[in-house]
């Protein structure tokens, strides 16, 4: 359960989010639409605890986000992968940081269809391949809450079609920010539209 109350975030004098109120029940998939600069990434990073609110609160299961971070999965605009480590070295590192094993890392890599590249150095991957490995990094600990920002961008048809199966899981709360209206609608239980840092439709 995510509770967001009167959430505001400024960058300098610019308001990225203005007084957002939103509840996301456990297990629900919420898709966030909105133009460039409407505040989608800011909202997702606030829920992840990567940004601090200027005012207002975000609670994940009643706690500040950083206290439940072990159960959170996050895929943002950045891949968070080390270019001179191989795909599997990266994933095994994150698996251990999340207190799971190499088997879970291999499983996640299989799920995104990248097992054949497990020994490739990350800096040799194409953009879409990197995106898929980053997705594996985000889900290898089987998070209860998964936040993904533009997961479809850079993926080919096949990978994009396979994505919902990787993102969704019974009982997992999923928040997806995307510009892909069709695919977004297909996985959503609920749609939230952001406009200039406010919710214009939900």
């Amino acid at each position, binding site marked *: 359960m995510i509770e967001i109350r009167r959430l505001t975030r400024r960058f300098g004098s610019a308001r990225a989010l203005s007084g957002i109120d939103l509840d996301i029940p456990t297990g629900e998939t919420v898709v966030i639409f909105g133009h460039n600069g409407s505040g989608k990434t800011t909202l997702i990073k606030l829920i992840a605890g990567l940004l601090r609110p200027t005012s207002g609160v975000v609670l994940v299961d009643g706690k500040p986000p950083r206290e439940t971070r072990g159960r959170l999965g*996050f895929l943002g605009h950045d891949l968070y992968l080390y270019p001179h*480590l191989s795909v599997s*070295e990266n994933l095994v590192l994150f698996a251990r940081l999340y207190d799971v094993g190499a088997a879970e890392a291999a499983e996640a890599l299989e799920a995104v269809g990248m097992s054949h590249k497990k020994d490739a150095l990350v800096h040799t991957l194409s953009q879409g391949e990197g995106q898929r490995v980053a997705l594996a990094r985000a889900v290898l600990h089987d998070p209860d809450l998964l936040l993904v920002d533009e997961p479809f961008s850079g993926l080919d048809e096949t990978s994009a079609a396979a994505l919902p199966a990787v993102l969704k899981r019974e009982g997992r709360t999923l928040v997806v920010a995307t510009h892909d209206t069709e695919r977004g609608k297909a996985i959503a239980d609920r749609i939230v539209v952001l406009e200039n840092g406010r919710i214009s439709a939900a």
Partner: protein
Amino acid sequence: MRKMFLLAAKDLRSEARAKEIAPPMVLFGLILVFLFTLNFPPGAGQAPVPGPVVGAVGSRELAGAFLWVSLLFAGILGFGRNASTEREGNRIEGLLLAPVDPAALFAGKALANFCYLWTLEAVLLPVFVLFFGVPAGLLLPGILLVALVANVGLAAAGTLFGAASQYVRARELVMPLLLFPVIIPLVLGAERLTSSLLTGGGLGSQSRWFILMGAFDLAIVAIGAVAFEFIVNE
């Protein structure tokens, strides 16, 4: 603890392939040692009388200072590069999201810096002995103890200020500006101890410098472990 080693191993393995940190450090250190040699009269290092050549430029005391200034500047180059691997691609966010104690993030980075310093010294010390013509027998094994005590504090301070300077403009300038005043006790201590070794004084009479440096190490490691979270968050 386990995660600290994982994180340091990640840096070292990556560096073993990329060679973006240690080789430039070593090269820069070599250049500095070489430049200092130019100001050091040939044979001055081998002065027969153990003891400072009073008033003379080119005493063995000065050689100790040259060594540590070279190590320090080359070290700073490495600290900055080591810190930037987490800034690039916002990789620090990926680490902050994981259930890892920020103190372990700090310790992992510091441990990598500690290893880079030893690598640097493994090359620079023999070159220093060769170029300055100082007797290696006087330096060893005492210099290893001096380096150990200095490296702990340098690596910790370099990690702390390396991270602190990542998010400002002119970070290459800000880092040394923050770092230099703080590590004065450490560098001064290392220089004095090295000079004492070079002039045949040994380390036995120098325990107060060890105590000072050891206290500095403890303090900076403790500060880093606590403060790192606030430095890298946002």
